[in-house]
């Protein structure tokens, strides 16, 4: 007989030592070790795990709070930072609802009859995303904006049977990196088109497309905040027999700007974080993917559809599943299984909360305050806008001081400054990408401009 292993009560484990022994007896074993006999002895761990000791709940929270408090988060510093993640006001209702445990402790809705809540919410999210982007169909979510762009390129390859994608360098550099990773082993060639005056210009894109071009990928507003000439770009792509993929990193912009579906986009791939999701140091966010109805069977990811039950009542199911890995295996449109359902739920609640007028209104406030900030900052001697193209809530400035140094000074005054672009764009070493959402007030903008003026003057 092996000596009984110590069994400590733990708040997440209902099993008591007595119950353990009773259950073991019920199956004819004397110790838990008997159940592990199939594990070869030479691969057993013969010691306790070397992990830090278990913490009581209060101690755990104190420890975590201490770590969290070391971070310069957006409640501590006034955030003028964007570049793919955006600090928007999230209505209180959004996470009170998305945070209901009936939603967040559920699994993928495999048993539709007991998962109508999640399924209906996903159907509503798909519908609202279609309305926002003016596309015909949207899926239930991808991992994030960058991976959605990667998947969109693969989808375009499958749809066109062509093997090159043309991508503007004004697409977020991390999106382009992921695009490369996703396509590297699939025989897809990436052709980068250098931006010009902050934009993917129709001339340069036209020169880059050819008969092997499956898709043209642009981002709008792009990484510099500039709004692309979507209609002209769509025309170039379509004349070459290619698709236009529009990456949207800031979907709030679509409250005010012409949606990609209206100017001819074939696939919209983007980041849904700004729609009611927290900054979370980069994730979880959600990838948005929307396309034309004719392309839906080449679409990756889960889709929810409406149907009826035996009594004729409306209900919702996961549908067109033969596209997916659990049925098609190596022939699936993607390997994606787990997605970002809860974040899509939050995005849906956010879109419903803002609604038809609110979405337009919040976008307008972004544009107006950002415009005001641009004017205030550009009035400072030595600072000028990097590009003339119109912008939404982000813009690039040339600074007379190193952007990183300015940001360091701004922290002392309680600001989280813009993004120093030099790391991504060596030709923009003095480039500072500033983001102004509706969460920034005029007073905060004025205060920022005053401090920036002071720092620039002193340098």
């Amino acid at each position, binding site marked *: 007989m092996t000596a009984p292993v110590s069994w400590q009560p733990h708040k997440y484990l209902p*099993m008591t030592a007595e119950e353990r022994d009773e259950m073991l007896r019920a199956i004819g074993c004397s110790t838990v070790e008997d159940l592990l006999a199939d594990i070869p002895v030479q691969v057993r761990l013969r010691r306790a795990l070397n992990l830090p000791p278990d913490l009581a709940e209060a101690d755990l929270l104190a420890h975590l709070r201490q770590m969290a408090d070391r971070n310069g988060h957006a409640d501590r510093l006034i955030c003028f930072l964007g570049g793919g993640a955006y600090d928007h006001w999230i209505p209180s209702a959004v996470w009170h609802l998305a945070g209901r445990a009936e939603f967040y402790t559920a699994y993928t809705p495999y048993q539709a009859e007991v998962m109508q809540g999640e399924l209906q919410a996903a159907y509503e999210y798909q519908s609202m995303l279609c309305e926002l982007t003016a596309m015909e169909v949207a899926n239930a979510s991808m991992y994030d904006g960058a991976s959605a762009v990667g998947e969109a390129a693969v989808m375009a390859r499958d749809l066109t049977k062509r093997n090159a994608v043309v991508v503007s360098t004004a697409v977020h550099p991390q999106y382009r990196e992921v695009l490369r990773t996703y396509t590297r082993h699939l025989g897809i060639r990436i052709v980068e088109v250098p931006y010009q005056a902050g934009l993917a210009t129709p001339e340069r894109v036209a020169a880059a497309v050819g008969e092997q071009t499956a898709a043209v990928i642009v981002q709008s507003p792009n990484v510099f905040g500039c709004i692309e000439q979507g209609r002209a770009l769509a025309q170039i792509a379509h004349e070459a027999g290619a698709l236009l993929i529009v990456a949207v990193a800031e979907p709030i912009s679509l409250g005010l700007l012409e949606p990609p579906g209206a100017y001819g986009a074939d696939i919209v791939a983007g980041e849904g974080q700004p729609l009611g999701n927290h900054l979370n140091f980069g994730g979880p966010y959600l990838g948005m993917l929307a396309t034309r109805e004719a392309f839906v069977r080449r679409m990756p990811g889960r889709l929810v559809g409406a149907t009826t039950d035996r009594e004729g009542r409306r209900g919702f199911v996961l549908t067109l599943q033969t596209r997916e890995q659990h049925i098609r295996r190596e022939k*699936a449109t993607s390997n994606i299984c787990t997605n970002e359902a809860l974040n899509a739920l939050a995005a849906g609640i956010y879109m419903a909360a803002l609604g038809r007028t609110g979405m337009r209104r919040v976008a307008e406030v972004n544009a107006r305050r950002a415009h005001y900030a641009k004017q205030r900052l550009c009035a400072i001697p030595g600072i000028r806008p990097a590009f003339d193209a119109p912008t939404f809530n982000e813009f690039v400035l040339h600074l007379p001081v190193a952007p990183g140094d300015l940001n360091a000074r701004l922290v002392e005054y309680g600001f989280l400054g813009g993004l120093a672009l030099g790391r991504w764009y060596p030709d923009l070493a003095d480039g500072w990408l500033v983001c102004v959402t509706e969460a920034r007030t005029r007073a905060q903008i004025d205060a920022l401009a005053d401090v920036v003026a002071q720092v620039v003057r002193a340098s």
Partner: protein
Amino acid sequence: MRMDNVPLIFEYSVPGRVAVALSDPGVPEVPLEAIVGAEHLRREPAALPEVSEPDLVRHYTRLSQRNYAVDVGFYPLGSCTMKYNPKVNEDAARLPGFARLHPNAPRELAQGALQLLWELDRMFCEISGMDRVTFQPAAGAHGELTALMMIRAYHEDRGEQRTRVIVPDSAHGTNPASAAMCGYTVVTVPSDARGNIDRAALRRAADGSVAALMLTNPNTLGLFEEHVVEVAEIIHGCGALMYLDGANFNAVLGITRPGDQGFDVMHLNVHKTFSTPHGGGGPGAGPVALKQMLEPYLPTPTVERDGDGFRLDDERPKTIGRVRAFVGNFGVLVRAYAYLRTFGPLLRQTSEAAVLNANYLLQRLRPYFDLPYDRTCMHEFVLSGRRQKTQYGVRTLDIAKRLLDYGYHAPTIYFPLIVDEAIMIEPTETESRQTLDAFADALIRIAEECETDPETVRTAPHRTVVTRLDEVAAARNPNLRWRPPTKAGVTR
């Protein structure tokens, strides 16, 4: 559950209603045309619903009441590890220092977050027997893809062009799908009579063209691969690498480590093993843990210790590149960190309880269903509904649906593919004996119903908010979105 239909949020819409109060711009008025350009202005507002905040709250609350969840009841979904999702983990992830931290914040403003990731890296390595971790992958399948890309980079760096990946016939569908996305051809190897990978077939398949074996251990039958050491020898013998699909890692925490079994790289399903909530399908996190020889190929960024502090490293010459933007699903990882700090070395007890719970439940159900692989199971087991199908014409799908009537979520069904009418049950360690007994009683009663009243089972569920849904119609004529009524009042 509420039985009445819940309208679509669009169907509550009344023009003029709003659920938010937004402040005025408060800046000098400039025409919008002058800001964004007239040609870029949206002509028609998006046809989003127009509801008040009470409408909104009641709608989504009612939807939540039409959902089954771990907080509602037992969720024995095999291979999904639906364990309890601790509440303190939610509080941890919602701390403003984490939830409100911008991913582009300079590193000196993110030291707490980076420290957490670094400590989590160390803990994951200790548990897995590996050397390094990447936090990039957003989910298990994403981790598979990431790992395969690193394996490919590893072989190519050694001047080897290997083209094939071996996957057992019991594998998750993500395995072959991930291999295909990495440009590999998939070779399927059968299972043997004891449910292990067939070693003779494996030997035949293993040659210089093989890049890796993707193995789940315990496998999808809930059985430990008894010959894992020999399997690793076969694979390493042909120069290939051993990949572990970590979906079933919850069975062996602190008992055996993949790194010690001969695996070179694995993904961790944080949303299974480490208790983070599944969110109705996501988010997850799929960090990949690996041995030192794969370290040069890690995706960027990596979390590095730098003197007293921490930094993200983007400058790695042999990296496979990014698989997503920013560092990873940080908010999910905070929860996993909180979970591990709640257990410490006691973690082993979770696996012991998971295995005991599964074997106890198996013992209770064994007389009533076929058991195709009769061995001591690990954290889950796979029954077959073949007896019920052939004798009473009741399919496993029907049994699953009938369980919904008894107030339980159904087990995973028709997977793994190698078991006819498969019923895959994973109770997890967070369920009490009383819950297991009540569930067993229900399933046994359904087995009896198959005999005495098969029609009731065949037409189940009867007590849910909807009965069986017409999936054929849904797929033939997909209705994937609400459409606004046209001006004539007719849906377009």
